[in-house]
């Protein structure tokens, strides 16, 4: 594969440049952890205050879609990891194909999420727009759904950004791969896996409470 000869003046070698880029991505992920951390703190505070409301709210979510989405996202992460592993000049078509697969799965995730949102809207479970839930648990349920919508919307936004990144890289890797794109692919993959991990947390916090008791 073409060794991209150009590295900016502040670096001393190609690997110097690439390792710096990767460190940059790790630092960025640290930022993201704290972003979701603030949100999760709010979740735990209210789940602690309204355990029953949260359990009830959780039972109103679509666990089938949630589980399917978890599987979809994990598979897409697998494809991305595979693409990183095999990326070279000879395998550029396969690399691009794997990334395209990951992108399709990402889009499928978003579509399913949309269907899920629609369902919640039909059931009048959208705080601030159409929320009708009465009874003593109403407050807890509403707080649960506020968390649900904010967290999943921010997560979906991250997915859309990730899909964009993967799409650009798929095109680049297919048309003119160079060592530079290996570093880019590596960083984008880190980001994608991070978004994946966030989802695993969200899945456990959103869909599972209140389901173990029969």
């Amino acid at each position, binding site marked *: 594969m073409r060794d991209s000869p150009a590295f900016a003046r502040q670096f001393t070698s190609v690997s110097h440049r690439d390792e710096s880029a990767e460190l940059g991505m790790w*630092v960025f992920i640290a*930022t993201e952890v704290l972003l979701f951390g*603030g*949100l999760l703190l709010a979740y735990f505070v209210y789940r602690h205050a309204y355990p029953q409301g949260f359990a009830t709210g959780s039972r109103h979510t679509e666990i089938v879609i949630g589980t399917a989405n978890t599987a979809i996202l994990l598979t897409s992460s697998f494809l991305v990891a595979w693409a990183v592993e095999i990326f070279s000049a000879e395998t550029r078509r396969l690399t691009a194909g794997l990334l395209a697969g990951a992108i399709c799965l990402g889009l499928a995730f978003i579509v399913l999420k949309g269907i899920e949102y629609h369902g919640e809207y039909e059931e009048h479970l959208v705080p601030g727009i159409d929320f009708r839930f009465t009874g003593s648990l109403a407050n807890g349920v509403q707080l649960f759904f506020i968390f649900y919508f904010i967290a999943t919307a921010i997560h979906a936004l991250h997915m859309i950004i990730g899909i964009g990144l993967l799409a650009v890289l798929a095109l680049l890797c297919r048309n003119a791969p160079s060592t530079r794109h290996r570093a880019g692919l590596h960083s984008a993959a880190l980001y994608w896996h991070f978004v994946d991990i966030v989802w695993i947390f969200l899945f456990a916090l959103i869909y599972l409470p209140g389901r173990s008791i029969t």
Partner: protein
Amino acid sequence: MTERNYLTADYTLRSWFFTTDHKRIAILYFASLTMFFFIGGAAATAMRIELATPQADLVSDDIYNRLFTMHGIIMVWFFLIPSIPNTLGNFIVPLMIGARDLAFPRLNLLSWYVFMLGGSVTLFAILAGGIDTGWTFYTPFSTLYSNSYVMVAAAGVFIAGFSSILTGLNFIVTIHRLRAPGLTWYRLPLFIWSLYATSVILVLATPVLAITLVLIAVERFFGVGFFDPRIGGDPLLFQHLFWFYSHPAVYIMILPGMGVINELISCFSRKQVFGYKFVAWASLAIAALGFLVWGHHMFVTGQSLLASLVFSFMSFVVAVPSAIKVFNWTATLHKGSLRFDAPMLYALAFIGLFTIGGLTGLFLACLAFDVHATDTYFVVAHFHYIMVGGMVTAYFGGLHYWWPKITGRLYSEYWARAAAILIFLGFNLTFFPQFVLGAEGMPRRYHVYPPEFQVWNVLSSGGATILAAAYLLPLFYLGYSVFFGARAPANPWDAPGLEWQTSSPPPEHNFDVQPVVTRAPYQYSRKFEAQPQNA
């Protein structure tokens, strides 16, 4: 005939607005921050005029609320937080570590654009009618009751946060990866250590503010949210999240200043900084401990006594590394060959003012005292001693110190000293009376007060006049020096740091030959001559 340097390399507007040179980006930031400093200052001036008399004569209640909010938001997010990191730091960090630029120059430029976007949105909120929540955006007022432009202002601050994160990220990677050969961690100037600690806070604290502002915006937009007491939400959760960011953020607003002071004290005492490793690790200790004290802003909110006790204790602990620094600077002065150039005057002012600010912080960290002093002028005086007396003074000190490097010109030492002394006097006259006012019980954020407080308020407003004039002075003599000042040599202060071993102003690529570091920083010979780090 001028030789080619980063300023003369290209004169087009394009070469400024699309530059990726860290030195030019520093200048872009410098120009923008100067503008924001004077906008924030104008609001402060209006408040001090209003407060000269006990009655409301200049502005209405509503306008007064908007004035102090605008003052706080502009000064905190659009001046102090970026002040030293984005101007002096941007310019000096690569030079100090012998690098040709920051690790991500385009990200650096992007951070300036993002910053300007955030600034414009905030200015729009102010012009459109202002915000009346205070810089702290407390709920449920900010979410349910305020009829002002809360969402727009919050959006502005949110956007500016990304610029902070990008800068912090860039500095962290740069300091890890781009140090010159031979420049080990313990050979780094302490300015770099302090900016590293600052960057860690920028990267880890800012996202928490971001998500908190998102929660506010959602609640305002949809009419329900996490902080809404009508559905069982807890408005105090907002305060926890806000101070989880904002207490670390106060260290964003002082650590870089402390970093500058190390450089100044050492250079003008012609001595190595006393206890280098302690000072270096104190910066990181402050960054870490600073995350564990936010509850000291909430002693009177009804949080549990146990929580208050722990937060009080931790606030005392966090003062230890700050005190270590003060002691070490003082010890550095001891038996030095002191020179009282303008930067040194600022540095000495910093030590005194920061000490007062820090000690009164300890008063406030005492539960029994804080119950009386919270939300009074005592708090206002406390943080202004640190943020203005400390950080702004350090900013001016650093600006004077590196001015010859940045512009290639020397300024008038006479005027520079005069301004430094005036700032010191004006500052104390403005803010010391506020300690008294606070101790006597005058609450903050009101513009009407009982007549017995007038004496101290008049003193404070009088001091503010001196302070305002003193802050304007550098605009003239520094501005003059850019065009008419004598040309600066490469190393006018005879300092050992790498940034002084290249020409003034530096060439586009910083160093014609890659420097190789062979020494610890701050080395001087017996005759007080600097021993360059790369000799």
